[in-house]
């Protein structure tokens, strides 16, 4: 154990952590599933546009999945995300239709701030209740969900279509990439189209990855989820860590509401109904453990993409019915959880062996020791 070769030791490859392992599994499954769909169903799956469509249609889901991942890593849960999307969409739609701001750009900007404000409000309130009053996160966010849904219906029971012209322009704005496009039957080149929301979603994933990996807050979230008591003893401010994780989660939900509106510019009492369940499923499939301490937004991103792909496959296959979709998603979710626990079990078994080997090795190298001293 003289270990003068510190650098070599730093470079030595470590076995994968649980977080990494589960993330790779979900990436792998996504690739396999997509490839299988491309081979069997052909059609749209062979075009890059399919990937962009998955992103365009599921941008809001990806964002709220990230919102769930951060609180789940910290050992909590947030089921108000869907409700907050609903409330944000309705409020923003009403605001866009009824404000008297001259400049259309300014009006959209204020709408965005409104969306973020609603999310932030929920985040602050829920964060305070969970972190400082130590109320069960499930209960707090369940109440948050009811509150948000209730407020949405108070705002309007009828669907509200966005009539704001500037915003409609925004909805139509798409990034076009011609070299990823394809030639239609009539010979026209159709470029690949990416919505603003999809770009925002990918940006959110990247930012959240950086936050979780490289900031003190992010690491503290992992520590709190890994062992709350230990985190406290290690000098981490557990309350503030939990609080901020809910604030971020709320803020992202508000953002997701705005992105949702950019995809479908209409408010409605049942918008994003049950999307919190999809978000939880995405996080779990992406390798976030409900017990906390393990997870990664890159995994979550692929988790959402897996769910989205399943839905697409079913929509394109003869089994197109909503109950089929739900059953298939459910089956996949069970399969993933089973797979995860099998993999973790195997890994932990080898972990114990490694530990014992290490202990044996240490003992060999210390022939003088006989254990904890004598009394």
């Amino acid at each position, binding site marked *: 154990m003289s*270990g003068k070769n510190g650098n070599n030791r730093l470079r030595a490859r470590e076995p994968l952590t649980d*977080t990494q392992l589960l993330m790779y599994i979900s990436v792998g499954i996504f690739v396999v599933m997509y490839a299988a769909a491309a081979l069997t169903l052909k059609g749209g799956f062979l075009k890059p546009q399919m990937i962009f469509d998955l992103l365009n249609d599921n941008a809001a889901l990806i964002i709220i999945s990230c919102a769930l991942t951060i609180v789940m890593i910290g050992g909590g849960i947030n089921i108000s995300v869907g409700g907050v999307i609903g409330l944000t969409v309705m409020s923003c739609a009403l605001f866009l239709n009824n404000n008297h701001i001259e400049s259309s750009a300014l009006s959209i900007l204020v709408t965005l701030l409104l969306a973020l404000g609603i999310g932030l409000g929920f985040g602050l309130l829920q964060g305070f209740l969970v972190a400082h009053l130590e109320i069960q996160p499930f209960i707090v966010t369940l109440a948050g969900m009811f509150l948000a849904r209730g407020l949405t219906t108070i705002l309007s029971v009828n669907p509200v279509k966005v009539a704001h012209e500037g915003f409609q322009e925004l909805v139509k704005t798409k990034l076009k990439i011609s070299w990823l496009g394809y030639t239609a039957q009539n010979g026209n080149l159709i470029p690949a189209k990416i919505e603003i929301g999809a770009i925002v979603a990918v940006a959110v994933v990247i930012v959240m990855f950086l936050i979780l990996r490289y900031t003190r807050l992010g690491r503290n979230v992992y520590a709190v989820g890994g*062992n709350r008591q230990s985190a406290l003893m290690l000098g981490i401010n557990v309350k503030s860590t939990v609080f901020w994780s809910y604030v971020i989660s709320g803020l992202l939900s508000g953002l997701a509401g705005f992105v949702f509106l950019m995809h479908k510019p209409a408010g409605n009492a049942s918008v994003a109904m049950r999307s919190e369940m999809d978000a939880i499923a995405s996080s779990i499939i992406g390798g976030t453990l409900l017990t906390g*301490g393990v997870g990664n937004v890159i995994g979550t991103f692929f988790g959402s993409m897996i769910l989205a792909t399943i839905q697409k496959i079913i929509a394109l296959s003869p089994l197109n019915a909503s109950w089929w979709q739900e059953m298939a998603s459910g089956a996949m979710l069970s399969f993933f959880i089973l797979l995860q626990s099998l993999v973790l079990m195997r890994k932990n078994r080898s972990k114990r062996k490694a530990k*014992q080997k290490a202990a044996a090795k240490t003992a060999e190298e210390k022939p003088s020791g006989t254990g*904890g001293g004598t*009394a």
Partner: protein
Amino acid sequence: MEDGIVLAMRGICKSFPGVKALNNVDFTLRKGEIHALMGENGAGKSTLIKVLTGVYEKDAGSIEIEGCPGEAHIHSPQQAQNIGISTVYQEITLCPNLTVAENMFIGRTSDRLVHWKDYEKRATEILDNLGIPARAKQELSRCSLAVQQMVAIARAVDMNCKVLILDEPTSSLDDKEVAMLFQLMRDLRGRGVGIVFVTHFLEQVYEVSDRITVLRNGELVGEYTVKDLPQVELVAKMIGKSLDDLAELEQFQKGKGAQDEVVYEAEELSSSECRPFDFKIRRGEVNGFTGLLGSGRSESVRAIFGADQVTGGKVKINGKTVRVSNPHEAMKNGIGYLPEDRKRDGIIADLSVRENIILALQTIRGMNHPIPRAKAEAFADEYIKALDIKTASQDTPIKSLSGGNQQKVILARWLLTHPQYLILDEPTRGIDVGTKLEIQKLVLRLAEEGMSVTFISSEIEEMLRTCSRLIVMRDRNIVGELTGDELTQAQVMKTIAGGEE
């Protein structure tokens, strides 16, 4: 505050529901001293430390710390760390899902960003310096208990602190690691750090400490310099009476109860973790497995109990061939096993003391035959008294007991099943001197009553006092068996080392 004093705690009181854990306790720590905090299990040592570091709020009293004018108000471990108190708690308080390096640095900086490269480089340096066999990027859960303990210590000593607190840091370390820790402590003392040291190993206290403060039942007994307090007196102060039990122990002649009848016999028994070995034990016999940490002594008894996956071998109990491939079958066949790692295999933190005690018996009876409440209460009462378990009541959740008392509860659990063959792996780790002797006496008494016992301990003396036969292991093989006159410390060490001089 007087010169030369880094920490002064005055009149500290702390109550938990049903227990007065600290009653008007004073504690003074001077610059550049190693101050041992001594007391029986449940005396209040860990509580005093946790009050100081802000884990618990004190009910009354004042704390003054050098460099902080007036009274210090510490409400969280974070604050304690910031004003220069670094702590290694009794239970290992690191995060299993983070890397070794991260565990050493998290919670210490006010930097908003994490500099992984820095962390890993500095962690590697520290690990190398201290000779800790771990890698910076390794996930902590992949390290052995001893390494985790060393990492916790490395973290604490790396902090620029004026007070260093070590609550039973040596409980899972071997001699060499202990010696290294002591060297570190002496270096820090030289630099003027005040060190609080808690342990149940009396010899360690006399090896490094300058001063001793003794607590008993949450009250201060006194503060002494080491040279004014011989070991016998220290024990007397801790338990409140003088300890002449050693003499009493001699009355129980070891090996007296051993009969000819073989209770348990294994041929070529092997498990996923250990190589095939033969083993037998007679009725009323106390034997021991000894060897270095990692020599396979724990793995062997785990195989006997079926705690690891059994891969081969023939087992006879009372002459009849039986199958013991999992703990449940072992229990049904009258084998009991007190595991070494009580955090992982032992306590169920949120269940009450009573439920933890009756757990094994209940499992044997099967869930369809619940133990009546009155009976369970009687059992719990009996063992709480017999092992002197300090608990507010039977209904207290076990997690709120002191470390040593939790250990006693697990011991009670196995004694209650009245196994014909009981395996005890490190039953006295973290247990105070008085109770240690009680447990040794109990083992001898049980043997006299016809129970067979396998006893594993890191303290050879303890094994020599109780066992009439010692099986010595090295590199996962049995390399010798000592009985009768061969049972001396020198002989054991020689066999462990491999017979050569």
